[in-house]
Protein backbone atom coordinates (compact mmCIF):
# COMPACT_ATOMS: atom_id res chain seq x y z
CA UNK A 1 0.00 0.00 0.00
CA UNK A 2 1.37 3.38 -0.98
CA UNK A 3 1.12 5.88 1.84
CA UNK A 4 0.73 9.49 0.65
CA UNK A 5 3.37 12.14 1.31
CA UNK A 6 6.07 9.49 1.23
CA UNK A 7 5.39 8.52 4.84
CA UNK A 8 7.74 5.75 5.94
CA UNK A 9 7.03 3.81 9.17
CA UNK A 10 10.62 2.76 9.49
CA UNK A 11 11.80 6.36 9.35
CA UNK A 12 9.14 7.34 11.88
CA UNK A 13 10.53 4.66 14.18
CA UNK A 14 14.05 5.93 13.53
CA UNK A 15 12.89 9.43 14.47
CA UNK A 16 11.35 7.95 17.64
CA UNK A 17 14.59 6.13 18.40
CA UNK A 18 16.50 9.37 17.91
CA UNK A 19 14.12 11.32 20.11
CA UNK A 20 14.26 8.67 22.85
CA UNK A 21 18.05 9.00 22.95
CA UNK A 22 17.77 12.79 23.00
CA UNK A 23 15.11 12.88 25.73
CA UNK A 24 16.99 10.44 27.97
CA UNK A 25 20.30 12.20 27.43
CA UNK A 26 18.88 15.65 28.08
CA UNK A 27 17.11 14.38 31.19
CA UNK A 28 20.27 12.85 32.64
CA UNK A 29 22.73 15.51 31.55
CA UNK A 30 20.77 18.73 31.90
CA UNK A 31 17.23 18.58 33.26
CA UNK A 32 17.85 16.49 36.37
CA UNK A 33 21.04 18.18 37.65
CA UNK A 34 19.81 21.70 36.90
CA UNK A 35 16.46 21.02 38.58
CA UNK A 36 18.23 19.43 41.55
CA UNK A 37 20.38 22.52 41.88
CA UNK A 38 17.35 24.80 41.63
CA UNK A 39 15.53 22.77 44.29
CA UNK A 40 18.61 22.86 46.50
CA UNK A 41 18.77 26.62 46.18
CA UNK A 42 15.04 26.93 46.82
CA UNK A 43 15.31 24.85 49.98
CA UNK A 44 18.40 26.86 51.02
CA UNK A 45 16.52 30.14 50.73
CA UNK A 46 13.42 28.60 52.33
CA UNK A 47 15.56 27.55 55.29
CA UNK A 48 17.04 31.02 55.53
CA UNK A 49 13.56 32.49 55.31
CA UNK A 50 12.26 30.08 57.96
CA UNK A 51 15.17 30.94 60.24
CA UNK A 52 14.58 34.63 59.70
CA UNK A 53 10.88 34.15 60.45
CA UNK A 54 11.74 32.21 63.59
CA UNK A 55 14.18 34.89 64.68
CA UNK A 56 11.57 37.53 63.95
CA UNK A 57 9.03 35.62 66.02
CA UNK A 58 11.54 35.22 68.84
CA UNK A 59 12.31 38.92 68.66
CA UNK A 60 8.58 39.69 68.71
CA UNK A 61 8.20 37.40 71.73
CA UNK A 62 11.13 39.09 73.46
CA UNK A 63 9.69 42.48 72.63
CA UNK A 64 6.34 41.46 74.11
CA UNK A 65 7.99 40.02 77.21
CA UNK A 66 10.07 43.18 77.65
CA UNK A 67 7.00 45.31 77.15
CA UNK A 68 5.20 43.23 79.78
CA UNK A 69 8.16 43.53 82.13
CA UNK A 70 8.31 47.26 81.54
CA UNK A 71 4.62 47.51 82.31
CA UNK A 72 5.07 45.40 85.44
CA UNK A 73 8.06 47.53 86.46
CA UNK A 74 6.01 50.70 85.91
CA UNK A 75 3.20 49.27 87.99
CA UNK A 76 5.66 48.21 90.71
CA UNK A 77 7.30 51.62 90.67
CA UNK A 78 3.89 53.28 90.97
CA UNK A 79 2.92 50.94 93.82
CA UNK A 80 6.20 51.52 95.63
CA UNK A 81 5.88 55.24 95.10
CA UNK A 82 2.40 55.19 96.59
CA UNK A 83 3.64 53.01 99.46
CA UNK A 84 6.59 55.35 100.06
CA UNK A 85 4.22 58.31 99.97
CA UNK A 86 2.03 56.65 102.55
CA UNK A 87 5.01 55.75 104.71
CA UNK A 88 6.31 59.26 104.42
CA UNK A 89 2.92 60.59 105.46
CA UNK A 90 2.88 58.21 108.38
CA UNK A 91 6.44 59.14 109.37
CA UNK A 92 5.62 62.81 109.10
CA UNK A 93 2.55 62.33 111.21
CA UNK A 94 4.55 60.30 113.70
CA UNK A 95 7.34 62.84 113.95
CA UNK A 96 4.82 65.67 114.25
CA UNK A 97 3.07 63.77 117.02
CA UNK A 98 6.34 63.05 118.80
CA UNK A 99 7.33 66.72 118.45
CA UNK A 100 3.98 67.71 119.88
CA UNK A 101 4.41 65.20 122.72
CA UNK A 102 7.95 66.39 123.38
CA UNK A 103 6.82 69.99 123.35
CA UNK A 104 4.08 69.13 125.82
CA UNK A 105 6.55 67.29 128.02
CA UNK A 106 8.99 70.20 127.86
CA UNK A 107 6.19 72.54 128.70
CA UNK A 108 5.11 70.35 131.61
CA UNK A 109 8.68 70.08 132.83
CA UNK A 110 9.15 73.80 132.47
CA UNK A 111 5.96 74.40 134.33
CA UNK A 112 6.96 71.99 137.09
CA UNK A 113 10.45 73.46 137.28
CA UNK A 114 9.10 76.98 137.40
CA UNK A 115 6.66 76.01 140.15
CA UNK A 116 9.42 74.33 142.09
CA UNK A 117 11.67 77.40 141.64
CA UNK A 118 8.81 79.58 142.66
CA UNK A 119 8.22 77.51 145.76
CA UNK A 120 11.95 77.39 146.54
CA UNK A 121 12.32 81.11 146.11
CA UNK A 122 9.29 81.65 148.27
CA UNK A 123 10.76 79.37 150.90
CA UNK A 124 14.17 81.08 150.71
CA UNK A 125 12.57 84.46 150.90
CA UNK A 126 10.47 83.40 153.83
CA UNK A 127 13.57 81.94 155.45
CA UNK A 128 15.53 85.12 154.85
CA UNK A 129 12.68 87.17 156.19
CA UNK A 130 12.62 84.96 159.24
CA UNK A 131 16.37 85.33 159.70
CA UNK A 132 16.18 89.10 159.23
CA UNK A 133 13.36 89.30 161.64
CA UNK A 134 15.25 87.10 164.10
CA UNK A 135 18.37 89.22 163.74
CA UNK A 136 16.39 92.38 164.14
CA UNK A 137 14.75 90.96 167.23
CA UNK A 138 18.09 89.95 168.73
CA UNK A 139 19.41 93.40 168.05
CA UNK A 140 16.49 94.93 169.66
CA UNK A 141 16.86 92.62 172.65
CA UNK A 142 20.55 93.44 173.16
CA UNK A 143 19.75 97.14 173.19
CA UNK A 144 22.54 99.74 173.67
CA UNK A 145 25.25 97.21 174.85
CA UNK A 146 25.81 96.30 171.54
CA UNK A 147 27.83 93.44 170.39
CA UNK A 148 30.77 92.55 172.74
CA UNK A 149 32.99 92.27 169.73
CA UNK A 150 31.91 95.71 168.65
CA UNK A 151 32.55 96.89 172.08
CA UNK A 152 36.06 95.46 172.10
CA UNK A 153 36.83 97.05 168.75
CA UNK A 154 35.63 100.41 169.95
CA UNK A 155 37.68 100.18 173.16
CA UNK A 156 40.71 99.21 171.17
CA UNK A 157 40.27 102.25 169.06
CA UNK A 158 40.11 104.42 172.04
CA UNK A 159 43.28 102.89 173.50
CA UNK A 160 41.79 101.66 176.71
CA UNK A 161 44.09 99.21 178.60
CA UNK A 162 41.33 96.89 179.61
CA UNK A 163 40.45 96.37 176.17
Amino acid at each position, binding site marked *: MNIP*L*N*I*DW*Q*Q*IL*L*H*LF*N*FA*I*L*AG*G*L*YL*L*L*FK*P*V*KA*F*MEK*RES*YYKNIDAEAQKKLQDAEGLKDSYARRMQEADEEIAARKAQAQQEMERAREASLQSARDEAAQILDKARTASAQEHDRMLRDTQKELVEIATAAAEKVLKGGQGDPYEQFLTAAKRGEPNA
Partner: protein
Amino acid sequence: MKNKKVFIIVWLAVVVLLGVLSVVVGSPGRAETVQETMRDAVLHETGQISLFGLKDVNPGLISAFTVTGILLVLAALIRIFAIPRFKMVPGRFQMLVEQAVGLFDNLAKNNSPWRHKFLGVYLFAAGAYIFVGTVFELFGVQAVTTAGHSITLPAPLSDVNGAICIGCLSYLVILSGGIAGNGVGGIGKTLKEFSLPISMSFRLFGALLSGLLVTELVYYYIHLSFVLPVAVGVMFTLLHALIQTYVLTMLTALYYGEVSEPSHKEKKAKKAKSAA
Protein backbone atom coordinates in the same frame (compact mmCIF):
# COMPACT_ATOMS: atom_id res chain seq x y z
CA MET B 1 39.19 60.17 7.85
CA LYS B 2 40.45 60.06 4.25
CA ASN B 3 41.48 56.39 4.62
CA LYS B 4 38.01 55.57 5.87
CA LYS B 5 36.39 57.17 2.82
CA VAL B 6 38.72 55.28 0.49
CA PHE B 7 37.91 52.01 2.23
CA ILE B 8 34.15 52.58 1.92
CA ILE B 9 34.41 53.47 -1.76
CA VAL B 10 36.56 50.40 -2.54
CA TRP B 11 34.31 48.14 -0.54
CA LEU B 12 31.15 49.39 -2.27
CA ALA B 13 32.82 49.05 -5.67
CA VAL B 14 33.80 45.43 -4.94
CA VAL B 15 30.31 44.61 -3.72
CA VAL B 16 28.63 46.14 -6.77
CA LEU B 17 31.08 44.44 -9.14
CA LEU B 18 30.54 41.03 -7.57
CA GLY B 19 26.76 41.56 -7.60
CA VAL B 20 26.72 42.48 -11.27
CA LEU B 21 29.03 39.63 -12.20
CA SER B 22 26.96 37.07 -10.32
CA VAL B 23 23.86 38.17 -12.22
CA VAL B 24 25.46 38.54 -15.64
CA VAL B 25 27.59 35.38 -15.68
CA GLY B 26 24.70 33.10 -14.74
CA SER B 27 24.85 29.39 -13.86
CA PRO B 28 25.53 26.36 -16.06
CA GLY B 29 21.85 25.41 -15.89
CA ARG B 30 19.47 23.98 -13.35
CA ALA B 31 19.28 20.33 -12.48
CA GLU B 32 15.58 20.60 -11.73
CA THR B 33 12.71 23.04 -12.12
CA VAL B 34 11.25 25.01 -9.23
CA GLN B 35 8.29 22.63 -9.19
CA GLU B 36 10.59 19.63 -8.89
CA THR B 37 12.66 21.33 -6.20
CA MET B 38 9.61 22.13 -4.11
CA ARG B 39 8.05 18.73 -4.68
CA ASP B 40 11.29 17.12 -3.58
CA ALA B 41 11.41 19.33 -0.52
CA VAL B 42 8.00 17.92 0.47
CA LEU B 43 8.24 14.32 -0.64
CA HIS B 44 12.00 13.61 -0.77
CA GLU B 45 11.52 11.22 -3.66
CA THR B 46 14.94 11.86 -5.17
CA GLY B 47 17.02 13.86 -2.69
CA GLN B 48 17.58 11.03 -0.19
CA ILE B 49 20.70 10.35 1.83
CA SER B 50 22.23 7.04 2.70
CA LEU B 51 22.14 6.19 6.40
CA PHE B 52 25.52 4.49 6.97
CA GLY B 53 24.86 2.45 3.82
CA LEU B 54 21.93 0.69 5.52
CA LYS B 55 19.04 2.54 4.00
CA ASP B 56 18.26 5.66 2.00
CA VAL B 57 16.48 8.10 4.26
CA ASN B 58 15.06 11.62 4.05
CA PRO B 59 17.53 14.41 4.84
CA GLY B 60 15.31 15.33 7.81
CA LEU B 61 16.33 12.14 9.60
CA ILE B 62 20.01 12.95 9.14
CA SER B 63 19.24 16.42 10.48
CA ALA B 64 17.48 14.83 13.45
CA PHE B 65 20.53 12.69 14.29
CA THR B 66 22.81 15.69 13.84
CA VAL B 67 20.65 17.89 16.07
CA THR B 68 20.53 15.16 18.72
CA GLY B 69 24.30 14.84 18.56
CA ILE B 70 24.80 18.60 18.90
CA LEU B 71 22.33 18.84 21.77
CA LEU B 72 23.82 15.91 23.66
CA VAL B 73 27.37 17.21 23.25
CA LEU B 74 26.26 20.65 24.43
CA ALA B 75 24.41 19.11 27.37
CA ALA B 76 27.44 17.02 28.29
CA LEU B 77 29.70 20.08 28.14
CA ILE B 78 27.30 22.04 30.33
CA ARG B 79 27.03 19.08 32.73
CA ILE B 80 30.80 18.70 33.00
CA PHE B 81 32.00 22.29 32.96
CA ALA B 82 29.12 24.58 33.95
CA ILE B 83 26.82 22.79 36.39
CA PRO B 84 29.52 22.00 39.00
CA ARG B 85 30.33 25.74 39.03
CA PHE B 86 26.73 26.85 39.53
CA LYS B 87 26.36 29.50 42.24
CA MET B 88 23.52 30.49 44.53
CA VAL B 89 23.43 33.88 42.81
CA PRO B 90 23.42 32.90 39.13
CA GLY B 91 25.48 34.49 36.40
CA ARG B 92 24.21 35.08 32.86
CA PHE B 93 24.86 31.61 31.48
CA GLN B 94 23.55 29.86 34.58
CA MET B 95 20.45 32.06 34.41
CA LEU B 96 19.92 31.05 30.76
CA VAL B 97 20.20 27.32 31.52
CA GLU B 98 17.96 27.61 34.58
CA GLN B 99 15.42 29.62 32.61
CA ALA B 100 15.33 26.98 29.87
CA VAL B 101 14.74 24.18 32.38
CA GLY B 102 12.40 26.25 34.56
CA LEU B 103 10.31 27.40 31.60
CA PHE B 104 9.24 23.88 30.60
CA ASP B 105 9.06 22.60 34.16
CA ASN B 106 6.78 25.48 35.14
CA LEU B 107 4.70 24.98 32.01
CA ALA B 108 4.13 21.40 33.14
CA LYS B 109 3.44 22.43 36.74
CA ASN B 110 0.96 25.15 35.81
CA ASN B 111 -1.01 23.03 33.36
CA SER B 112 -0.95 19.79 35.29
CA PRO B 113 -0.36 20.55 38.97
CA TRP B 114 -1.45 17.06 40.03
CA ARG B 115 1.02 15.13 37.83
CA HIS B 116 3.88 16.91 36.11
CA LYS B 117 7.26 15.27 36.69
CA PHE B 118 7.39 13.20 33.49
CA LEU B 119 5.57 15.90 31.54
CA GLY B 120 8.26 18.44 32.47
CA VAL B 121 11.01 16.17 31.13
CA TYR B 122 9.11 15.49 27.91
CA LEU B 123 8.32 19.16 27.31
CA PHE B 124 11.95 20.11 27.91
CA ALA B 125 13.23 17.50 25.46
CA ALA B 126 10.58 18.23 22.83
CA GLY B 127 11.00 22.00 23.21
CA ALA B 128 14.77 21.79 22.88
CA TYR B 129 14.44 19.45 19.89
CA ILE B 130 11.94 21.62 18.02
CA PHE B 131 13.73 24.89 18.74
CA VAL B 132 17.27 23.74 17.99
CA GLY B 133 16.05 21.60 15.09
CA THR B 134 14.34 24.58 13.48
CA VAL B 135 17.24 26.94 14.05
CA PHE B 136 19.56 24.21 12.70
CA GLU B 137 18.48 24.91 9.12
CA LEU B 138 19.99 28.39 9.43
CA PHE B 139 23.49 26.94 9.61
CA GLY B 140 23.24 25.39 6.16
CA VAL B 141 24.97 22.11 7.01
CA GLN B 142 25.69 20.32 3.75
CA ALA B 143 25.14 16.66 2.88
CA VAL B 144 25.42 14.60 -0.29
CA THR B 145 22.36 12.80 -1.68
CA THR B 146 22.43 9.32 -3.11
CA ALA B 147 22.26 10.94 -6.53
CA GLY B 148 25.47 12.82 -5.80
CA HIS B 149 23.92 16.28 -5.37
CA SER B 150 24.88 18.53 -2.48
CA ILE B 151 21.92 19.62 -0.36
CA THR B 152 21.50 21.75 2.72
CA LEU B 153 20.15 19.74 5.63
CA PRO B 154 16.62 20.94 6.47
CA ALA B 155 14.91 21.17 9.86
CA PRO B 156 14.19 17.65 11.15
CA LEU B 157 10.51 18.43 11.54
CA SER B 158 10.10 19.63 7.99
CA ASP B 159 10.24 15.91 7.23
CA VAL B 160 6.74 14.50 7.49
CA ASN B 161 8.06 11.39 9.28
CA GLY B 162 9.71 13.52 11.96
CA ALA B 163 6.58 15.61 12.42
CA ILE B 164 4.39 12.51 12.65
CA CYS B 165 6.80 11.04 15.19
CA ILE B 166 6.63 14.09 17.48
CA GLY B 167 2.87 14.57 16.99
CA CYS B 168 2.07 10.93 17.77
CA LEU B 169 4.57 10.78 20.61
CA SER B 170 2.96 13.86 22.18
CA TYR B 171 -0.41 12.14 21.89
CA LEU B 172 1.01 9.01 23.53
CA VAL B 173 2.42 11.13 26.35
CA ILE B 174 -1.01 12.69 26.83
CA LEU B 175 -2.54 9.21 26.81
CA SER B 176 -0.04 8.03 29.42
CA GLY B 177 -1.02 11.00 31.60
CA GLY B 178 -4.68 10.05 31.24
CA ILE B 179 -3.98 6.44 32.25
CA ALA B 180 -1.76 7.47 35.17
CA GLY B 181 -4.29 10.00 36.41
CA ASN B 182 -7.61 8.32 35.74
CA GLY B 183 -6.97 4.75 34.62
CA VAL B 184 -9.46 3.50 32.04
CA GLY B 185 -11.39 6.78 32.29
CA GLY B 186 -8.22 8.58 31.23
CA ILE B 187 -8.01 6.47 28.07
CA GLY B 188 -11.57 7.48 27.23
CA LYS B 189 -10.80 11.13 27.87
CA THR B 190 -7.73 10.99 25.64
CA LEU B 191 -9.45 9.07 22.86
CA LYS B 192 -12.09 11.81 22.71
CA GLU B 193 -9.32 13.97 21.26
CA PHE B 194 -8.59 11.45 18.51
CA SER B 195 -7.73 14.18 16.02
CA LEU B 196 -4.85 15.45 18.15
CA PRO B 197 -2.03 13.30 16.72
CA ILE B 198 -2.98 14.28 13.19
CA SER B 199 -3.44 17.95 13.97
CA MET B 200 -0.21 18.14 15.99
CA SER B 201 1.81 16.28 13.37
CA PHE B 202 0.56 18.28 10.42
CA ARG B 203 0.67 21.59 12.23
CA LEU B 204 4.38 21.03 12.85
CA PHE B 205 4.96 19.66 9.39
CA GLY B 206 3.01 22.45 7.68
CA ALA B 207 4.62 25.23 9.67
CA LEU B 208 8.17 24.04 9.17
CA LEU B 209 7.65 22.94 5.60
CA SER B 210 6.21 26.33 4.66
CA GLY B 211 9.41 27.93 6.00
CA LEU B 212 11.48 25.48 4.02
CA LEU B 213 9.50 26.06 0.84
CA VAL B 214 9.75 29.84 1.14
CA THR B 215 13.51 29.52 1.64
CA GLU B 216 13.83 27.11 -1.30
CA LEU B 217 11.82 29.49 -3.46
CA VAL B 218 13.91 32.47 -2.48
CA TYR B 219 17.19 30.68 -3.14
CA TYR B 220 15.94 29.21 -6.40
CA TYR B 221 15.93 32.63 -8.05
CA ILE B 222 19.26 34.41 -7.88
CA HIS B 223 17.63 37.83 -7.96
CA LEU B 224 15.96 37.11 -4.67
CA SER B 225 19.17 35.91 -3.09
CA PHE B 226 20.35 39.35 -1.95
CA VAL B 227 19.26 40.92 1.35
CA LEU B 228 15.93 39.10 1.34
CA PRO B 229 17.34 35.86 2.85
CA VAL B 230 18.33 37.84 5.92
CA ALA B 231 14.68 38.52 6.67
CA VAL B 232 13.31 35.27 5.27
CA GLY B 233 15.98 32.97 6.56
CA VAL B 234 16.74 34.43 9.95
CA MET B 235 13.55 36.16 11.04
CA PHE B 236 11.14 33.54 9.76
CA THR B 237 13.21 30.67 11.06
CA LEU B 238 13.61 32.20 14.49
CA LEU B 239 9.92 33.02 14.66
CA HIS B 240 9.04 29.52 13.51
CA ALA B 241 11.34 28.03 16.09
CA LEU B 242 9.82 30.02 18.92
CA ILE B 243 6.20 29.68 17.85
CA GLN B 244 6.29 25.97 17.07
CA THR B 245 8.13 25.18 20.29
CA TYR B 246 5.58 27.14 22.27
CA VAL B 247 2.56 25.72 20.43
CA LEU B 248 3.48 22.04 20.69
CA THR B 249 4.66 22.16 24.31
CA MET B 250 1.69 24.28 25.37
CA LEU B 251 -0.84 22.01 23.65
CA THR B 252 0.76 18.87 25.08
CA ALA B 253 0.83 20.34 28.59
CA LEU B 254 -2.76 21.58 28.29
CA TYR B 255 -4.20 18.25 27.13
CA TYR B 256 -2.03 16.30 29.55
CA GLY B 257 -3.36 18.38 32.44
CA GLU B 258 -6.91 17.98 31.22
CA VAL B 259 -6.86 14.19 30.90
CA SER B 260 -4.78 13.53 34.01
CA GLU B 261 -6.94 15.68 36.29
CA PRO B 262 -8.49 13.44 38.97
CA SER B 263 -12.23 13.16 38.31
CA HIS B 264 -14.67 14.72 40.77
CA LYS B 265 -16.18 11.34 41.62
CA GLU B 266 -12.82 10.12 42.87
CA LYS B 267 -12.34 13.29 44.86
CA LYS B 268 -15.78 12.86 46.48
CA ALA B 269 -15.07 9.21 47.26
CA LYS B 270 -11.71 10.16 48.83
CA LYS B 271 -13.38 12.88 50.89
CA ALA B 272 -16.07 10.48 52.07
CA LYS B 273 -13.40 7.94 53.03
CA SER B 274 -11.38 10.50 54.92
CA ALA B 275 -14.54 11.78 56.66
CA ALA B 276 -15.45 8.23 57.69
